[in-house]
Every structure is written in structure tokens, then in C-alpha cells.
């Protein structure tokens, strides 16, 4: 019954592309966090009135973040092709999708981290200073633990965004579920493939959001 409806769907192919999507999303989330977290911290710390207040650095960072956030992802992907090729040795496939995904979403995460850290009570930072904490200690022992639920929520939002971007990366032959949907569902008019990939992507997003929400709840002490 089901297999009659889904004549064009090849479970093996589906499984492989699903794996590619997980790989792309997983690694780009990891690298996005590694880049976006410090970037967000730096933006907050160098902002006026904060611990490492530094106007030029703050403004340069802010402009860079804004530029990368305002570029449409597809254009960003094409623009940085030479950089991608330099970094991973190819401009095709799953690996080649990761640099643009990271560069596209790290600035976004940085902004979310910025918001999360700004929510930390100034009084608590002041308390740490009064107890003789160094800037590094304030970051690691106060800012990050206090903002943890909000940062996890930010990473969750970013990861969900990355699922969408990774599907878009399919256009440039990055592989993954998006690639499958475009090549079969769109170009060969195999509607059943399109529907199945969409259902899987929606399910993936649901799972990511649920895990994120659980973690946020787990770390919230208020």
C-alpha cells in the first residue's frame, strides 16, 4: 500500500542522504558554536561600559557580524567558494557545505549569545569584581553559567536554521536531504520523494527543538 504510493522512494538513498544532512548539520553546529560563542562574548565584553570596553574592536566586530547576517545564504555560499575550496580542497559535497554554513550562522549565533549575556544581571558581575575575580574568571564562572539556558536556546535556534540552510546547500550539490528533494522531487517531478524528504526534515527540526527545550528547562534555576 505505502510502497505503491511511494514508488520513487529508495529507502537506501533516503538513509544515505539523511546521514549526510545529519553530518552537515552536526559539524556545522559544532563549528558555529566554536566560532559564534567567542564572537558573541567578545562583542559583549568590548561593548561600551563593559569589562573590556573597546570602541574600535566593538564596532568592527559589529559591522562584520551585520554584513554576514545580511547576505542571503545562497549568495554567501557562491561568494566564498574560493575560500571553501582552499579550506576543504573541494567546492562540492557535504564537506564543502560546512564552511559556508558556519560562516552564515556563526554571526547569527553571536548575536543570540550577545543577547543572552546581556541578560546576566550587572549586579552579579559587579559582585564578582568585588570578590577579586579576573575577567577570565568572570566569563567562565559567572557569565557563561548564568546565561547557559539562553545560550542553549540560541544554539537550538541556530541548529534549526542550519537544517534549513543545509537543504539550500543542496542547490550547489552539497548532498543531503535537500539535494535529494531538488534532484528527484523538483527536477524529476517525483512528488513522493519531495513529500518524504519534507516530512523527514520537519521531523528532524521537531526533535532538535524538543531536545533543546528539554536542556533549557534542565538548566533553568529560576
Amino acid at each position, binding site marked *: 500500500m505505502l510502497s505503491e504510493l511511494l514508488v520513487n522512494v529508495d529507502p537506501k538513498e533516503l538513509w544515505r542522504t539523511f546521514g549526510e544532512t545529519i553530518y552537515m548539520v552536526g559539524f556545522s553546529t559544532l563549528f558555529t558554536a566554536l566560532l559564534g560563542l567567542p564572537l558573541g562574548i567578545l562583542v559583549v565584553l568590548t561593548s561600551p561600559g563593559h569589562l573590556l570596553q573597546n570602541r574600535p574592536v566593538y564596532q568592527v566586530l559589529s559591522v562584520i557580524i551585520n554584513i554576514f547576517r545580511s547576505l542571503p545564504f545562497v549568495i554567501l555560499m557562491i561568494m566564498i567558494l574560493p575560500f571553501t575550496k582552499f579550506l576543504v580542497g573541494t567546492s562540492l559535497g557535504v564537506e564543502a557545505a560546512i564552511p559556508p554554513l558556519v560562516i552564515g550562522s556563526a554571526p547569527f549565533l553571536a548575536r543570540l549569545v550577545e543577547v543572552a549575556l546581556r541578560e546576566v*544581571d550587572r*549586579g*552579579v558581575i*559587579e*559582585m*564578582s*569584581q*568585588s*570578590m*577579586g*575575580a*579576573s575577567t577570565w*574568571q568572570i566569563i567562565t*564562572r*559567572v557569565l557563561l*553559567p*548564568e546565561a*547557559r539556558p539562553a545560550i542553549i536556546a540560541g544554539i537550538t535556534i541556530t541548529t534549526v536554521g542550519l537544517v534549513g540552510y543545509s537543504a539550500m546547500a543542496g542547490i550547489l550539490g552539497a548532498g543531503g536531504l535537500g539535494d535529494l528533494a531538488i534532484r528527484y522531487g523538483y527536477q524529476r517531478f517525483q512528488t513522493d520523494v519531495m513529500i518524504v524528504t519534507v516530512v523527514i526534515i520537519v521531523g528532524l527540526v521537531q526533535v532538535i527543538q524538543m531536545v533543546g527545550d528539554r536542556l533549557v528547562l534542565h*538548566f533553568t*534555576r*529560576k
Partner: protein
Amino acid sequence: MIHLQNLQKEYIVNKKSVPALKQIDLTIEKGQIFGIIGHSGAGKSTLIRCINLLEEPTQGSVIVDGVDLTRLSKKALQEERRHIGMIFQHFNLLSSATIFENIAFPLRLAKKDKGEIDRKVTELLELVGLTEHRNKYPAQLSGGQKQRVGIARALANDPKVLLCDEATSALDPMTTQSILKLLADINKKLGLTIVLITHEMQVIRDICDRVAVIDGGYIVEDGPVAEVFLSPQQPITKEFVAQVSDFEIPAELLASYGRMATDERANHRVVQVSFLGDTTFQPLMFEVLHSEDLTFNILHGTISRMKDTPYGRLVIELQGDKAVLDRSVELFRERGLDVEVML
């Protein structure tokens, strides 16, 4: 213990300099509880935050236990701050950490070893009466309990000085009393120097040894609490004192005095008599009033305690011959009472 010399602080607001503290010279002795009272905006918060350099003074020096903090490097200042505890109006606890971890925080900053942290925090939990709340989070505690955590945390590094920034202003009167009592106990038990700022004269009266009144960035008056309390010099000080002894001459009395003829009026007098220390418990009033031919009427009275010093204040209306009234006032004064003729 603390010397503030020629301390000045200016803020730059919209490129204009706004003075917050002007010419502050203050000495706080070891083991004292020193209160600084002022209205909001008077500069008291800036002043206390200059003592651990959370606010950097524009000019002047801050000497704590012989070290001029304004001359230290960033690193040396961090080290020195460990010996200056601070508690806050809004407690400033780490919401993501347990009570244990909150108290352990300054010890972890100082990289103390695990066994020592455990021993010290357990001891402090007991001192502030929160042993059973050890593994809770701040959100599960009441305001008074949170401030107790703040106090325990501030004491973790065995500081020489404890700064209290409006520590009881967010608490209800009963909790305020218990926190003040805890501070007084700690002061006595550990010989800790405490500096506190407040806008409530009651806090000053209950636990301070000395008080400074700050207004418009200047210290306008300072001295032992009893002295400032019983004979305030500046209008603003009188205003603060009135917070706790809110006596006003009743309107009926004023009206009836207004109706009196001049010679009748001369036989009436309203005086405020203040006692301090041992005189509070001696029948001095009786002795004078008994020996003279006059009648009296008590309009208002307080007998209370300033920290450990008992004091009393009575407002009495005296009626009698003018000469007798003058003599009685003299007799009060001879016996060491402070007498102010109010009407």
C-alpha cells in the same frame, strides 16, 4: 583601617562632568561599625563603591589596612579585593549555582583546595543558619535567607572589612532586624570592620558606632552615633533623626499657647530632655521635679538603645513660676542631661 583622603569622583554624562563626591576625608577605625547615611543621589553608593574601587575615584586615595588601592595594578587590586567583603541590596547571588557553590565562589576564585572549601563553607552555613539549605538554589530562598547567603559569601575569604551596600533596603522590617543582628554578632565575634550605607536612621541607631551624613557629595556631619543622634547639627541630620523620633508639638498645645497672655505664657515651657548611658536608669527627672514647685506633663517619650548604649528622650511641658522653670532647667543640665527648650 580605612582612610579616604581628599576623595573626589566625577561622572562624565553627555560630555559634561557631574561631580558625585567632593572632598571626602574619612577615617574608619578597626573593629567599628561605621554607617553612612544619605538620601538617594547623595553619593553614598558611589562612596562605598570607591572603597573597593568598583568606582574609580577621579582624585584622592583609598587606603585600606595600609595599602593605597588607587596605586595598585589590576592584578594586585584583584588580590587586595579578596580581603574586602561586600554585600548588596539585591544580594547578587549566582542563580545557576547552589547555596553551597555561591558561598564557595570567592574561595574558588582564590583557587583554594577542595577540602578547605568544604570545611569553610560548612562552617559559614552554620554561622548564618542555613545548613539545611546547602543544596538549594537561590530562587528557592526568601529575601532574608538570600542576604544571609550574601553575608556568608562575603566572609568566605576572612576579609578585614565588610562593605554593606544598602544591605537591608530590600527586606521587610523583621528580616532587617535579624540581618542587622547577624552583622552586629559578626562584628563582635570576628572583630570585623563594617562599613554600611543606608537611608534609614534606624539601621544607624541599631548597630553603628559612628555615623557620617552625606549630602550633595559632601560629608556634612560625622561623629559617634549617640552624639549625632541626640544633638544633630545640620538640617539634613535633624531630618534623618526625625525618622526615628517623630515627635511634633501637638497643634492643640500650640493653639492654647497662642491664646495665652504674655505673663501666663512665661509660666509654661516645653522642653526636650535627653539622657544617654547610665543616666537613663537614674531617677534624675524625679529628683528635680520633686524638689521644685512645679507641675509637669509628659507629651512624648522614648527609651531605647543605640547599639549597646541606652538612651532616653522625653518631651515634657513644665508649668510653674518663671524663676522655678529656669532653675529646673539648670538642675537638669547640672545632672548631665541634655535639655533643649522647644517652646
